[in-house]
């Protein structure tokens, strides 16, 4: 057993269709806390950069849970959104939170100032499926169901559109920590890669199409770059998650297990050696990337696990 300060630093949270959010001891697979998320399923989870709060994207709300107490109910309720919130995330210094939802809007929520006025809103034509913050913290990349990717410049409010493929929904966008590559996956299982070139001071990031490949046979649900930018993980409805080398986008590992059903979400450990996945077989799993083996299962949910959030700590 760890002492508390140590334990606090590695956080794994999972949530899904059973209206609960569970926190896990990552090394033993024991669930040490269950939080109620009574009103809806959990669409997305994110931990604040200071590891104090956990945000859960739900139907019409974003709930914030206190990670350092035993309160099983949320402590903050972000209200006034119609329809599902599909994605949520934070600015690196915790100044603001962004969310995207099926009401075709991307919102920025002020976290620091006392007033509740929220600085920005961005409207698109179709339900927003994913929002990704560029590591430079001033550009948001938004994907929607009509297949458009928007680059929204937060400083100037300018936006730019990309349509990689018509008649396909963009389901997730990821940018690697160095800000050199962007990946997007769609409901046809295809993965698109752009190389990004950062602009000087206030100049926008330039995107150049680099590569496209069929990552999965069915919906690709999530994509994520590893912290060392060497790998890209994609998860899919075809019951697998795949690890790709970012050098040439060749397949590195297929993470597959009998009856694991849809794989919804994934997160890397900070040393890029392990990857967590959340799947419809009611469990989260940890995989060794080198060997491609499943190392542990986190069982306890009563229904599909569709979202996970993980914060590691460097030693």
């Amino acid at each position: 057993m760890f002492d508390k300060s140590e334990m606090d630093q590695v956080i794994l949270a999972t949530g899904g269709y059973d209206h609960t959010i569970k926190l896990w001891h990552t090394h033993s697979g024991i669930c040490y806390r269950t939080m109620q998320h009574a009103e809806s399923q959990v669409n997305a989870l994110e931990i604040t950069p200071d590891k104090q709060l956990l945000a859960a994207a739900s139907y019409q709300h974003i709930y914030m849970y206190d990670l350092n107490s035993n309160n099983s109910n949320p402590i903050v309720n972000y209200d006034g959104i119609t329809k599902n919130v599909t994605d949520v995330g934070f600015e690196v210094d915790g100044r603001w939170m962004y969310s995207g939802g099926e009401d075709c809007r991307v919102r920025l929520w002020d976290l620091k100032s006392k007033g509740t006025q929220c600085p920005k809103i961005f409207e698109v034509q179709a339900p927003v499926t994913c929002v990704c913050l560029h590591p430079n913290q001033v550009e948001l990349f938004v994907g929607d169901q009509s297949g458009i990717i928007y680059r929204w410049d937060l400083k100037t409010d300018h936006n730019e559109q990309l349509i990689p493929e018509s008649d396909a929904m963009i389901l997730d966008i990821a940018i690697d920590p160095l800000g050199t590559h962007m990946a997007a996956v769609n409901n046809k299982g295809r993965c698109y890669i752009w190389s990004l070139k950062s602009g000087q001071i206030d100049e926008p990031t330039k995107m150049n199409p680099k590569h496209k490949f069929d990552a999965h046979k069915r919906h690709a649900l999530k994509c994520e770059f590893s912290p060392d930018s060497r790998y890209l993980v994609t998860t899919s409805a075809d019951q697998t998650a795949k690890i790709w080398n970012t050098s040439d986008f060749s397949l590195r590992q297929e993470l597959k297990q009998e009856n694991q059903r849809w794989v919804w979400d994934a997160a890397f450990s900070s040393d890029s050696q392990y990857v967590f996945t959340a799947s419809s077989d009611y469990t989260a799993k940890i995989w060794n990337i080198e060997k491609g083996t499943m190392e542990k299962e986190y069982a306890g949910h009563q229904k599909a696990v569709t979202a996970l959030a993980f914060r590691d700590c460097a030693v």
Partner: protein
Amino acid sequence: MALYDNKYWLLSHIRNSFISTDDTGMCELIMTGEEGVRKHLKQSLDSYPDDEDSEDEDDLSHESYDLQLDTDFPLRYRSNTAVRLEKLEQVKKRTGRIKHIKWETNKNELSEEQIDQLFVKKEPKVIEPKQSLFSKTFKEHKMMPINPYMDYAKFDGSGQVNLQVKKYRIFLTMLPEHQRNYPLAVCCTSSAKIQELIGLILLKCSTMYEDYPWKPVNNYGLYITEEDGEVDRDFPNLDPRENIAKFGFACLGLVEHSDPSKCVSFGNSETVTIRKFDYNDKKGKDSSKQDQEKQITTDLHLMDVHKKAMEAPLYKSFKVYMINKMRAKVEIHLGISGEKIEIDPVQKNSKFVLVKQKPINHDMDMIAWCEPIETTKSNKMTFKIIYSHSFANAENVSSPTLQSSASFKSYEFEADQSIAEEIVNKINLILDLRSSDTRKEYLAAQERKYYKKKALI
């Protein structure tokens, strides 16, 4: 007719509503004291501005037929309204602790300064590859044995909203005194079976009390327990194969069975500890370690034999399978004491039990012999008990010993090897002690058979 703009009627309606929804009866008590005020009100407020219908006047004076003012506190059922109000109150309390932030569209354009404050451009940094705390601890714990009760995690019902769950307070009787003062709160999905609930409890226990040597699930039984943690030992443990929804008890005691096959038994751990102490003392005196160990094992063995012989006539119940003539197995409780052997079928609710076994009692004097037959591959052992058929069936025979030729019959049973051996041993010890006529006759008969066979050869 009473209308909603009739002030008197409204007042009276409100009063009635108060009285009918107040479960404490306090409203009523206060209102009886207001009789004077009421009369005054009646006078001042014209109860019926239109005096056309005079029948209602009577109604009003009665207020309501179904409400009687009582001066003592009546015990009332909680009204639906009260329950609903309480629920609303709880929700309000809960949400009261939640900070609500409502989306408001920002009317004012953000100033340059605000934009610069909020949106600070960062240069993506090359992250030096460092070891992650997760990987480090994960690798360290990789060699740790996996919690054997992990599979039961899926029965955890805590935090579930749309799923039926049952909450229990479990008293852990095996823990040292100072640790078992408070029951363990366990929330289990209603679909689980008792043994799965036990597994879930053990999963929780094993993480909370890591030092205690937890055993496999079938070593434990759940017993009905008082609120103060006293296990009710008059009842057997809850059938591990039954669904938990069948039992309504919220307070249960987890008891460690000294032998998983026994159904009614509470560990004799005390004697064991005493013995341990004895040998610890001896250890100090003896010089040679090997001798000492030999001594201990032989002593232990002697003690064991002695103990078994002493305990043989004591009643003990075993769960075994009875094999009938059709070679079908029926689960039964085999109760053995110095006086008699009882065969009791395990109660099953199913109406479609193919083979039924009636409960049977045999006086120990009717039992002639007990021996193992064979050990199967799956570590099971069959054994038989031979009894005198004529004696058993002729209870009204005045002196069974006069029966000249007793015919012998046998029962066959199957059980785990260790249990079977214990049973055979126990019965033979009892038979040796009693040396009944039946036994003598059986032995004589066997001997005769033996000689006959020999003569034939």
